[in-house]
């Protein structure tokens, strides 16, 4: 496994972040950098805290703060404590303004906790400033900017992949239903699913629509048609409203199909709605909390979430991942760290696991590379309203496919 070798070469990049302080028990080196004082390093961030969906995107800061609490509890790094100053609200697509505010008003060393649900046009300003930036890689604006580190490599919404066809085969599903809103991102995602099944013909797409109305959760006709077409595997590119309404409608019309939910890893959601999703597959962009035995990184994360009295969710996890990456960068940069050194250090990493929560990002290529040689992802299955790791052996959270590998070649695990 080439990636495993790379990981070994990378030294302590994936070592437990809790030991961060051990590298610097000497005097604090003098650092003349924004947001850095004798004993603190300040960071800021911008997230869609208020949003029309009332979703907790702002929780990303809770994750960042929990990680900082962990690091600070053992003395911080290079004798300095980490702190989040003024988390900023993207509101109604104000992130350019807020990014500028963070850069010019908040005196911060890094941007940690970026989660903007619409266009991330502040990305260019961050790129120009060269500040180390970490966030939830949800927008294409993340692509191609060497100082922006997301929770994954560059996105490609409309690209095909082998994962889904492989999964359909494993689950013995024959007919796929693809549903998307009449919204650009959603459509592109549906297109990617269709391409995947065109390329890897493990099942046929029996129903395809990308003309659904966002905000009107009535899918009775669509579900009826899927039933007629014999759909047994539904993939959506939709929000929780849509996913849930489809699940309820499917049960109502007695459609015997499971769903593949690309972004539904939310324990509090599944706790109350799990009955509609029995057997469904949810994609998880990091190590699922349910992995057994619990990997050290996850255990540490859950411990500190508990200590901070925060219920962990997708967004707190991104925050934690973002903070972990900053720490890796700081460690790589050394006691005389600068923003540039942190960015450069991270960009040398070929297997960045953000404290053991990711499958490993190769920052030498993945800022721009849309088609990495290998792609990994974690999946969980809904069983009794709870998530259970799926398709992987014990202790290996990730399922990895080579890009050009056929659907019959077994995946590797990581």
């Amino acid at each position, binding site marked *: 496994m080439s990636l495993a070798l790379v990981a070994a070469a990378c030294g302590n990049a994936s070592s437990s972040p809790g030991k961060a302080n051990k590298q610097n028990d000497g005097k604090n080196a003098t650092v003349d950098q924004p947001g850095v004082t004798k004993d603190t390093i300040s960071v800021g961030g911008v997230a869609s805290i208020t949003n029309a969906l009332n979703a907790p995107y702002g929780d990303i800061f809770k994750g960042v703060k929990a990680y900082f609490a962990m690091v600070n509890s053992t003395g911080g790094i290079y004798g300095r404590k980490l702190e989040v100053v003024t988390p900023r609200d993207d509101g109604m697509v104000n992130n350019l303004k807020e990014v500028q505010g963070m850069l010019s008003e908040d005196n911060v060393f890094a941007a940690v906790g970026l989660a903007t649900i619409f266009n991330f046009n502040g990305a260019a300003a961050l790129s120009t400033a060269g500040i180390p930036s970490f966030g939830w890689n949800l927008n294409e604006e993340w692509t191609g900017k060497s100082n922006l580190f997301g929770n994954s490599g560059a996105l490609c919404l409309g690209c095909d992949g082998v994962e889904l066809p492989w999964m359909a085969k494993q689950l013995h599903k024959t007919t796929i239903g693809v549903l998307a809103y009449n919204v650009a991102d959603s459509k592109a995602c549906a297109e990617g699913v269709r391409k995947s099944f065109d390329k890897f013909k493990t099942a046929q797409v029996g129903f395809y629509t990308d003309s659904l*109305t966002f905000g009107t959760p009535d899918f009775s006709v669509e579900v009826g048609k899927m039933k007629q077409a014999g759909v047994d595997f539904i993939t959506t590119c939709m929000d929780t409203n849509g996913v849930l309404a489809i699940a309820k409608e499917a049960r109502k019309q007695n459609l015997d199909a499971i769903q593949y939910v690309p972004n539904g890893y939310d324990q509090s959601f599944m706790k109350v709605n799990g009955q509609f999703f029995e057997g469904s597959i949810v994609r998880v962009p990091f190590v699922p909390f349910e992995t057994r035995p619990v990997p050290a990184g996850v255990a540490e994360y859950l411990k500190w979430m508990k200590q901070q009295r925060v219920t962990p969710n997708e967004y707190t996890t991104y925050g934690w991942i973002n903070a972990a990456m900053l720490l890796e960068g700081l460690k790589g940069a050394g006691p005389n760290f600068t923003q540039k050194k942190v960015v450069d250090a991270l960009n040398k990493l070929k297997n960045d696991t953000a404290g053991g929560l990711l499958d490993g990002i190769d920052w030498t290529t993945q800022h721009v590379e849309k088609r990495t040689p290998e792609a990994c992802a974690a999946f969980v299955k809904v069983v009794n309203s709870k998530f259970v790791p799926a398709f992987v052996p014990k202790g290996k959270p990730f399922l990895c496919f080579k890009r050009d590998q056929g659907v019959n070649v077994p995946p590797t695990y990581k």
Partner: protein
Amino acid sequence: MTDFITYVIQGIPFGCVFALVAVGLVLTYKTSGVFNLAFGAQAFVAASLYYVLHVRHGWPTLLAFALVVLVISPLLGLLLDVLIFRHLRTASPIAKLVSSLGLLVAVPEIVTILVLGESSTFGVVGIWWNDNALYRFSDYVIDGKEMAIIVSTLLVVLLLGLLFRFAPIGLRMRAVVESPRMTELAGVNADRVSAFSWMLSSLLAGLAGVLLAPLYASLAPQNFTTLLIAAIAAAAFARLTSIPMALVGGLLLGIIQALLSGYLPPASVIAQSVKPTLPFAALFLLLLFWPGLRSAIQNKDPLSGVDPPPDPSVAVTRGRFLTNATRVSGVVVGTGVLLWLLTAATTYWIGIATTAVVLSIVFLSITVITGMAGQVSLCQATFAGVGAFSTAQIVKVLGLSVLPTLLLGAAVAAVVGALLAVPMLRLGGIFLSLGTLAFAVMFDTLLAPLGWVSGGAHPVSVPRPIGFVDDRPFLILCVVVLAIVSVFVIFIRRGTTGRYLTALRGSETAARSIGINPTRIRILAFAVSAGIAGLGGGILAVQKGVAVKEDFGYFYGLFFVVLVVTLMPSTVEGAINAGVGFALVPEVLKLVGVSSSWQFVLFGLGAITYARHPEGVLEFQKGKSLAAIQKRLPARLRGPVPGPTPVPTGGAD
């Protein structure tokens, strides 16, 4: 045929929801003349309270339902009537619409902040004993939440029928619905009827709220607002007058939606464009072609488009001394701020100032269309979007340089505005407002997602013009453009067009009687306004470096109107105040340490006062302080004191 029947049945539950909303809208429109855009907000209040009581605090279904829907919702309606709408009975239909618009913007934010808080709202539960219980009717299955909707709608129909047929208050309401003037003459206590109809309508809103909530995974005001706008089509079908027709219209809307889903090929371009736009396109077409609606407008409310003009602004009534003092201090402060911005200020504050300036340009479009022409257009943000997308696409495709392209973008927006105005102006009044709202939502769902418009998933970037790449030169450029547009607007106001528009606002009949062609002059006003908005939108895109459709969504169109009418709709100064307010208020709130969501509450509640102070709250306050200052000034410095108003101007013939 069996397919057809299945689709029809599948459309009924949602049709019932539309029907309930449409009935609520018709009730208040007919009894108090208010087209209650806040209906969706009221539904959201009920849904949120029900969720908190039932799900978070574990109250039994029946108790929570009774308290929320049968007690709190009617009380909320009563409160709205007593505090706001009762006092608006003589106000123009547009003033009433703006007040409800203010509520639409403010109320959901208040509820989100005070009732729901930060924690998630998953696990929304309905009022049926089990939302997911299944009921089989031969081939078709209905679940609990749909059963609740259908049963509630039937009950509402039955009870409303009984109420209007037998109960004394119902009979009076019916009388008011059929002929408000006659009822007044007959000595019916209009206050009581209005209070009762508000309570009833609010109860329906509450019912719609708790019925709708379980259709979604979590509670979000947006769900309710979108649905409300969709249901307006059903109300329009009922000509805003007939309750039975509103029910039919709602059901039809739901059924047509299901039929379209059933028969249109699901992945086709036509399905993509027709289905999501159906309710808004239906509203648009109904407004234009539904004979009943048009005759209702023509015969019953010929002057609905005429807004009583505001009192002369302070700038007119204040004396020369005060005028000069105001101007001098304005110039001093403005120059000071500009100097600070150009020397010491950080990128952030330059950005905020630039936003203030650019938005001021957009808001000048509202000065023209609302302040001067007296029309409330709810799609000014959409016009700004048209300008922004045109600018971005022309620069990208034709490679023209940015500055001249901004003018082209403005021209495109102006043409769109003029084309929209041609059919819309036949409507006038609130129907014009609703039509522009339908257009805005249609643009959002149909055109904005398309690649050749907004770039789709990849927004089109716009470079800054050469020489203005840095923030400071760009700010100067924006200030210059604002100055030019301001002068442009002032010249139009002073010129023939402005005089004609003032005349039309004062009295359309009289204006026509001296030979003014109202359609031509208003189309001109629409085109100019859309052009200004388009220019502002284009500059906004240049400022951000990219034309993003989220910046021009329909909600912005609503919020812009709310913002500008709260401050000062009729003057250039007012537009600039609104621009500064838009950019600065969130910063002030941040300094105070509260969520910037409060800006919606602030301006939303501000807009409610529009009916009482059509000149704008700020202007009203200025007037008050002016009076106070003038009292203390020596007599020779005072201006003419505005006299009383003995002559009624305008009004029905």
